[in-house]
Each structure stands twice: as C-alpha cells, then as structure tokens.
C-alpha cells in the first residue's frame, strides 16, 4: 500500500509529551478501555485507528477529561502529562485546568451561535483576557494558523453559522488554537465534511504539527497514513499495536493490525 507523506521536512521526535499507563475506562459497569499503555510524542501527530466501537474516541476523550461531564464514568490508571509529570486523571486534578491545556476539535463542526470573532475569542475570554488589542492579535493569529484568516478577515462580525462546513471546522480549530494548547485532540474532524474540505483540514493538520502535539481519531486509514507520524491500532477497547506510522502501515507486527489495514476486516 502506498503512503502519501507531505514533504514538509518534518522530523520524528522522541520527546515524550504524555505517557499512558495501564489505562482502564468504564461507562458505568461497562469497561470501554482495557489496560492501555501508550506514548504521545511532542509535536508529532499520533493517529488512533480501529473499527467503529473499538474505543478510539473514548480513549481520546480521556485526554481532556470530557468523560467527567457525564455521571457514572470512571477512570483507572494514569495519563502522565509532561513537563509537569502529573497524572491528569487524578481526582485532585481539575478537569478545567486539563482542558485549558489540552483542547479538542469535534466530529461535527460545533461553532457557537456567535460572531466569528467571538467564537475564536471565547477561550481567551474565559481565561480573563479583556484587552481588545490582545484579543484581536490572538484571534488573527489563530485564524491565520487555521488557514482561515484570508477568507474571513473582512467579516469577523458575521455569525459563524454562515460559514461553510469546512470553514466552520477550521473555525473550531482556530478556536482551539487561540489559547495555545499543548495538545490538540481531533475526534474524526473530517467525517462530516466533503472531500475538498477534508483535504484542506488534512493539510492544516500537517502544517500544525510543528507547533502543537496532535492526537487524531480517524476511521479513514488513508487519512491516518497521510497525516500521522505515529499510529495506534485499537480493537475492542484494547491497544493492539502502536508505532511509527511507516512501520504500522508497511510492516505491522500484529496479524490483526495487518488484516485491518489491508482491508480484510473492519
């Protein structure tokens, strides 16, 4: 199978940003994640792949404690965040603090029914930024990084709903970038978009990897191959194989991974 890699001169890094130790996760009595060990390397793109229902989204949502929003969910094990060397799943850790440092982009674009400007500025506002000049500068930066600035710079006051689907998703990425997160989580960010919008988001992710650590869930293997440096294959709540994307896609160690990647099952 052919691997498409954007020629970006991006190098593999082995600096650990986060370490997952023996992570178990339960929805009430149902165990959704089983004993997961994994590394997340700094300023790299790590893709989580696997058949639907394998727990990849559940795993992703552990990183910014989204599961805390709903009752009867609980975690066991650790997700260590560096450089703090702190377990972000610890009950003493404030999920709000975690989410301020680890942001997320969702499956469907979910802009707030506010103006484009206010959407991007929201994260800054809840951090107490009030100075108009700072807000404007950071919003512009975020929109530039999300490759949206040129398209919206003349209509920042427009309602975000008036943007196209792909633009809305880039707006959500800008919203997440505005606060300089350390890790950016993507939960199947292109599954609700058309192929052209998908290509632009993928290009954006490739560009962002020099700036931020990225974890992306995708059901599209080509996408994983195109954008990621590392890939984790999950099945039924377990991490089956983890490694450099080239290795996983060319020479998977595990028979199950190979079957999935070559399309024999999934």
């Amino acid at each position: 199978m052919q691997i498409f890699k954007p020629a970006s001169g991006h190098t593999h890094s082995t600096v650990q940003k986060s370490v997952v130790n023996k992570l178990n996760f339960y929805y009430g009595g149902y165990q959704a994640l089983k004993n997961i060990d994994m590394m997340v390397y700094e300023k790299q793109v790590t893709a989580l792949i696997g058949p639907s229902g394998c727990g990849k989204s559940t795993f992703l949502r552990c990183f910014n404690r989204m599961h805390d929003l709903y009752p009867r969910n609980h975690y066991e094990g650790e997700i260590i965040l560096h450089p703090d060397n702190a377990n972000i799943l610890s009950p003493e850790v404030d999920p709000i603090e975690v989410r301020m440092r680890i942001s997320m982009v969702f499956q469907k674009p979910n802009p707030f029914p506010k103006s484009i400007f206010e959407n991007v500025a929201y994260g800054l506002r809840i951090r107490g930024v009030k100075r108009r000049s700072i807000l404007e500068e950071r919003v512009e930066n975020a929109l530039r990084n999300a490759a949206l600035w040129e398209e919206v710079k003349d209509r920042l006051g427009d309602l975000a709903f008036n943007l196209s689907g792909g633009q809305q998703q880039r707006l959500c990425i800008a919203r997440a970038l505005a606060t300089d997160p350390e890790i950016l989580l993507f939960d199947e960010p292109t599954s609700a978009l058309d192929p052209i919008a998908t290509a632009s988001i993928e290009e954006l992710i490739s560009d962002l990897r020099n700036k931020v650590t990225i974890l992306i869930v995708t059901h599209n293997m080509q996408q994983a191959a195109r954008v990621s440096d590392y890939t984790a294959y999950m099945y039924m709540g377990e991490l089956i194989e983890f490694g450099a994307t080239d290795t996983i896609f060319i020479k998977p160690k595990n028979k199950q991974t190979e079957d999935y990647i070559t399309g024999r099952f999934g």
Partner: protein
Amino acid sequence: MPIPNNTDHSPGSLRRSYKRYLKERVIELLLFLAAFLSVFITFAIIYLLISESLVFFEHVSVWDFLTDTQWTPLFDDAHYGILPLVSGTAISSLVALVIALPFGTIIAIYLSEFAPFTVREIAKPFLELLGGIPTVVYGYFALLFVTPLLQTILPDLPGFSLLSAGLVMGIMIIPYVSSMTEDAMRSVPMHLREGSYAIGATRFQTAIKVVMPASLSGIAAAYILGISRAVGETMVVAIAAGMQPNLVWNPMEPAATITTYIVQVSLGDLPHGSVGYQTIFAAGLTLLLLTLVFNILGHLLRKRYREVY
C-alpha cells in the same frame, strides 16, 4: 530531553483550584434552592390547608362534614356539610365535560389525521389563543350572552344556572383537551399508520382502529386532566352559576361549587381565625385532594404513553 523517571505524579499546577470550585458549588446550591422552592410550595400548601382544616374539624366532626346535606356556615344555624358544594362541582364539571371531551376529541382527530398542513398551522395557534382568554371574560360571556341565549330555548332557566356555567366551562376546556389529545395521537409513529393504509384502510378507520387505540393512555390523560381543570375552575361558575349552596342534581338550577364558596367567603369580611375563615381551608383541602387524584392519574398515564414511543 531527559524526563525525570520518578513515580510521583502529583497534580502540581493542575491541582483543583479551590476558589473556582467553591464558586461553582455556591452557584449550584443557589440553583438547587430555586428548584427546591417548588417542593417547598407544595409543602406550604399542604401544611396550611391541613393545619387550618384541623382547627375546623375541632368544631365540626368529619362525619358531619361528609354527610350533612346543608352548607350554611355563615348562618346562625350553621351546617357544615360539604355535599352541596361537591354536587355543584360535580354537575357543573359534568356539563363541561359533555361539551369538552367530544368536541376536543373530534377536533384532535381532525387536526391530527385529516387537516392539511396549513389548516393545522393556523388552527393550533388559534385554539391556543382561545385557551389563553381570561376566565373572568368567559364568566361574563356565560352570564350575559349564553344564559340569555339559552333562555330563549328554555324559558324556565334562571339567570344563574349550572347549565350555562358548565357549557361555557366546557368551551373553555376544549383547546386544553384537544391539544393534549392531538399531541398523544401525533406521537403515534407514522409506520403504524402506513401499515394500516397499506392494507386498504381509510383515514377514519386508521384514526379509530389504529391511532386512537395506540394513543389510548395519552387520550385518557388528556380527559382526566380536563376533568381536573373543570373541577378547579372558579370564575365562570362564580359569575354564572350563582353562589347558593344547594344540594341539586339538576343543571338547570343555580348552585355553589367548592371554588365559588371560597370566592364568596373571600368577598365578605371574615375575621382571621374564625370558623368561617377556616371553612374555606377545609373546602380548599377537599378541592386539592380531588384535583390531586385526577392529576396524578393523568400524569401517570401521560408518562406511560411517552415511554412507549
């Protein structure tokens, strides 16, 4: 970059911010108190009605209250039988229901199964507006329009009667019954209707044999909540039915209901703490118990049809 390989994963800067946590909890507590206020209101109602009624029942035995056929608390020869008030309530409600249930149901069937989209879009808000007209206005309508109109057909009808009060009350409740019945019928999934149409049933057959049985508990709930509305209605009867407590079974006569008695006493000037003052709480307790039974039954039925679909 060397990572310190220690096992102390203390939260450090990620530790829960105590100040933020406290603020969030205080807000949650305030919101909870607002929600809990409704429970407090209920307890206040029950406590007040029962405590004042207990004083009343020190003067009047429960047996007399339930069996005496006269209600003359304000006379020198005081009798405290709730039956005349209950009979007035029952008769006026019955008249109202004879109007409201059939009409409400027919309108609901029409709007849910027959009416074209535009008719429904216009008729529903119109009915809602009808339901929003103040009851005192319906009282005026009963006394000064419906009663004279009825008197041209029934010359013996007195100026105050349970009949005209009940009729207008029925008209007033139609929107309430029809909107709840229609909700119940429209919650029946389309594939049930399609199944019926597919074997050659007409609209009416589908409505009667498929949709109505499938939404039976919802329709029953609408009826029961309609009854509760009629029993608790005050102004129409207070204006158009007269206020004399008569133990009657003929709707052509004037009579008082539980609610109109409370109005009548309130219009007078009874001193706080007198037996007369307490009678309205005993009457109120009776009314609350009556409506409570209907309401609970109605909501249980409604919940059931909501669970099915």
